[in-house]
């Protein structure tokens, strides 16, 4: 039985979610400046009043991989500091609140991939982000859990920051230093090239921290709800979603790949007001 829904013309067109772009830009610039300052500090020419800490100290995933060693010995994996644990807790609080907000709003590597995606969209238009056959894509999306488990296991076993050898985030902000691992640079270049065809390829298929954050989509307090009676089934939300999630068929989006970017919402792409929004449980 099909339920007929009164079809309306979209009431207004909305600008994209501009405020997210500014928040992302802010974090990207901040991390870039800190990374540059870290290099300058080694020659004693650092910019005053700006942090010059190592990016390892500003990575919440460092907190995740060091957790085993921290619990068993009270020490941190080489290169990881207590600040990583604090950031891990901050990421956890955000994730419990609304899912992988860190991925969609903060992570500079995610932002960087989105910027390349803008070029990809210009080149490939509607074909962009639809190159990988659905069947293969679905399987590949679980790769990041394999990555998460192997990185945690190998770090616990070796007591060294094994992920640093392939970390594209560290490579992106340290490619000018000798600290960068060649593996990280290779992964970064592959990610950049893939971003011309696929939106956020690293996030979709490989990011171990994204994998962990994604699990919170099943339990997040603020839920992404679609108001079925007002939905006109135009599928604009599906097209807007960088993670190719079929928003238009769900009443509550619980997909493990959602990055809480809000691009599908009525405040961004959905043309009908109050039709798809992040809402706190129990409220309309």
């Amino acid at each position, binding site marked *: 039985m099909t339920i007929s829904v009164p079809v309306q013309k979209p009431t207004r067109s909305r600008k994209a979610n501009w405020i997210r772009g500014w928040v992302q830009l802010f974090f990207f610039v901040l991390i870039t400046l800190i990374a540059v300052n870290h290099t300058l500090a080694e020659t004693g020419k650092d910019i005053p009043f700006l942090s010059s800490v190592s990016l390892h100290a500003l990575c919440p995933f460092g907190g995740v991989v060091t957790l085993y060693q921290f619990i068993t010995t009270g020490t941190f994996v080489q290169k990881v500091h207590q600040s990583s644990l604090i950031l891990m807790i901050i990421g956890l609080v955000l994730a419990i609140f609304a899912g992988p907000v860190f991925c969609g709003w903060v992570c500079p590597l995610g932002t960087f991939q989105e910027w390349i995606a803008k070029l990809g969209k210009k080149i490939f238009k509607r074909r962009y982000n639809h190159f990988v056959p659905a069947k293969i894509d679905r399987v590949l999306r679980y790769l990041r859990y394999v990555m998460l488990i192997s990185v945690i296991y190998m770090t616990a076993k*070796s007591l060294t920051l094994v992920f640093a050898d392939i970390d594209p985030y560290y490579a992106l902000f340290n490619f000018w230093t000798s600290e960068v691992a060649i593996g990280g640079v290779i992964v970064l270049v592959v990610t950049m090239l893939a971003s011309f065809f696929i939106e956020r390829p690293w996030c979709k298929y490989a990011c171990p921290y994204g994998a962990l954050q994604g699990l919170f989509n099943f339990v997040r307090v603020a839920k992404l709800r679609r108001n079925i009676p007002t939905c006109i089934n135009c599928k604009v939300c599906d097209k807007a979603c960088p993670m190719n999630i079929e928003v238009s068929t769900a009443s509550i989006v619980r997909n493990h790949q959602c990055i809480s970017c809000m691009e599908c919402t009525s405040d961004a792409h959905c043309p009908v007001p109050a039709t798809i929004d992040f809402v706190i449980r129990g409220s309309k």
Partner: protein
Amino acid sequence: MKIAPRFMAIIVLLIVFGGIIVSAAFDQWVTTTTKEPVKFKDGEFAGQYNPADIRGSYTFGDVSRLFNIPIEDLAGAYHLPESDPAAVALKTLEDRFIEYDVDLGTSSIRLFTALYTGLPFDLTAQDSYLLPEGAEVLKEKANLTPEQLEYVNSHVAGVALTVEPTIQPTSDPATGVNAASTLVATKSAVTRTLQGPGTGSGIPDLEHTPTDRLVSGRTTFKNLLDWGVKPEDFLTTTSYEMPSANILVKDWATAKGLSFPTLKTQLQILVDAAK
């Protein structure tokens, strides 16, 4: 309640920076292992770091950065590995140079740093030694006074340094363990010329037999077994069978090309778990 993008932006900024500020207020926002020696307060060198305050938790990279000493010079002076010498922690030196019977730990780095940089240092405070290569680096790169030069020349470790250990068979020669490893050495009778680092003797020094369940350069596999470490756990952790009981773990790791500091930490976890 609906969460608008603007509200989400505020939440993100509030939680991220609020979390950092609150943790900083409780002294929990630590982005480095506080690696800043005290500075000289007055005189010609006021404001510069005092090498006497270098700690064992520093890495060679820290010393290089703090005192502006090229890492190549430090690497040459202390036989550091070619791959990532900056990551080597000073506290691992004692174990690396266990064969020398003089202090080649953090105090040696303090001495080297002070002489290299020309910063004030009390040479009489502690008897610190250098490796021959370290002494050469100083003679080549530092402006040593005649008094300092004399000190350096008389504090080079490993040059014709001899000790006299007694060799006795162990109480149970029937164990079938290799002859060299069944000898007990004490420093009183047999002359033994000390070798450079990495050429471990394989002779456990029972004068220093560890009793505190702390894995160090003097720990043997027998110690590990006595502390309750199971050979099968050792195999799972290292992917190697546990070798003969009286061999020094450090010598075994060197022979296998394994990083002793890393192995030491792994084994300490096994020892602690076996309590």
